């Protein structure tokens, strides 16, 4: 069995950690543009992880996934969201439920839950270092925290896209050899989500004049 050099294993671990840290960064980012840039960084990290897996295990087909992931997640999706944000002329990310330090501590608790759960399941990846799956699950849960606690449509969309990145990383960890067509189908799902969120953002902004979802909570007679 091919054993990757320790330095590549360490690099893969660090890149996986970057994915989780970017999710935490998106949670505490005060500006929507910062969230989009962090999503770009997170997507770049996921792409780099795909390349590292391809390089260390000789999986040539996976490079197609890396290229598609790079084009879509690092270039197209952020560009589309930024253009929508430009039309809305608003940049402050709203959060009325909790202050940032409390949100981060809640996210830390749920990420610990993810780590402990995966550790208890004794799942081990054949292609990535041991902590990668725990990190992916922790990032997924933190992305849920973004969606729950942030109260504007851009942040919630970025939370959803970030969740998709974390799920991609988890699938890369547990099912690296999944057929390429299925991996590409996941990316197509992302495209559909971008279109759906784009329409929602436009409609919501046109009706309420803001990107905040708070007006949706008001009772109407």
């Amino acid at each position, binding site marked *: 069995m091919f054993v990757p050099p*320790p*330095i590549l*294993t*360490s*690099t893969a*671990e*660090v890149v*996986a*950690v970057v994915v*989780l*840290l970017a999710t*935490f960064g998106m949670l*505490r980012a005060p500006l929507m543009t910062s969230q989009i840039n962090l999503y770009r960084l997170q997507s770049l990290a996921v792409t780099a992880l795909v390349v590292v897996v391809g390089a260390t295990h000789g999986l040539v087909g996976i490079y197609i996934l890396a290229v598609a992931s790079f084009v879509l997640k690092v270039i197209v999706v952020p560009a589309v969201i930024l253009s929508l944000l430009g039309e809305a002329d608003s940049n402050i990310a709203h959060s009325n439920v909790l202050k*940032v*330090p409390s949100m*981060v*501590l809640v*996210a*830390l608790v749920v*990420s*610990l839950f993810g*780590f*402990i759960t*995966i*550790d208890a399941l004794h799942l081990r990846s054949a292609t990535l*270092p*041991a*902590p990668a799956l*725990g*990190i992916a699950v922790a990032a997924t849960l933190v992305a849920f925290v973004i969606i729950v606690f942030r109260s504007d449509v851009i942040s919630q969309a970025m939370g959803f896209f970030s969740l998709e990145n974390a799920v991609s990383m988890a699938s890369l960890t547990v099912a690296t050899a999944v057929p390429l067509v299925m991996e590409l189908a996941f990316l197509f799902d992302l495209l559909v989500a971008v279109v759906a969120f784009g329409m929602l953002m436009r409609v919501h902004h046109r009706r309420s004049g803001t990107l905040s979802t708070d007006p949706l909570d008001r009772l109407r007679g």
Partner: protein
Amino acid sequence: MPDEASPLFILAPLLAFACYLVVPLLIPVLTSFPLPLGYMGDILGGGIILSTAGFLVALAGTETGSPYAQLGSSRAMTFGALIEPTVLFVVFVVGLITSTDLPYAMSQAVHSSLGEVLAPAHVLAAIAFFMVVLADTGRIPIETHSGTLEFGMIDEARVLEHSGPAYAFLTWGSSIKQFILYTILIDVFVAPWGLSSSRELGSVLSAIPALLAKAMGLGVIFALIDNSFSKLRLFKIPEFIVAAFVLAVLAVVIFYLGGAS
């Protein structure tokens, strides 16, 4: 000395200075092997001595009853208490990696392999400690070091009432503390290369320019941060501290639950 102040007002800067001089005995400054008194205290011992110095300076700041010095002392103690959990988790990482809490052991573990430097737990702990150093030395984004506006001051406000030799000891001590924290970051976490491994005088002396070069490199990074970011509002500082705390906790979790690297 002000009429209202006790002798502590004059003694505290000297005692704090003495504390700062003790810490280099416990950490790898020029040598990779421990000094004769190197095992006198572990990394927590060094932290306690630094905290004692900070406490003494804060106490001296409250002696005259000046509102600004008291404000600075109060803030320094408040944010110091918030930073402590981060420091503890960084120490846990050191303990988990080396099975001891001796800075020399950590330095040797990092020196022994590049893979150790790139291990995620180690990288996260190093970044968390970097943020602690930023906060502890009163640098941007926590504090404007050269600012003159009292309302935003933290560390700088504590020494507003001092002058003459006492003030000189306080500022000199502050510089020594900064250099100690730089040395811990460089020689324990990031780049313990260039340390002397033998007891020969020439070897030890050659470690001095290496340390100065590494410290200057780190100083450049701090200067870049100082000139690239703005100061955080006082009530935003906990956000910065909690970010460092998250990094330190994740370092422990990734090491402990993710399997030792």
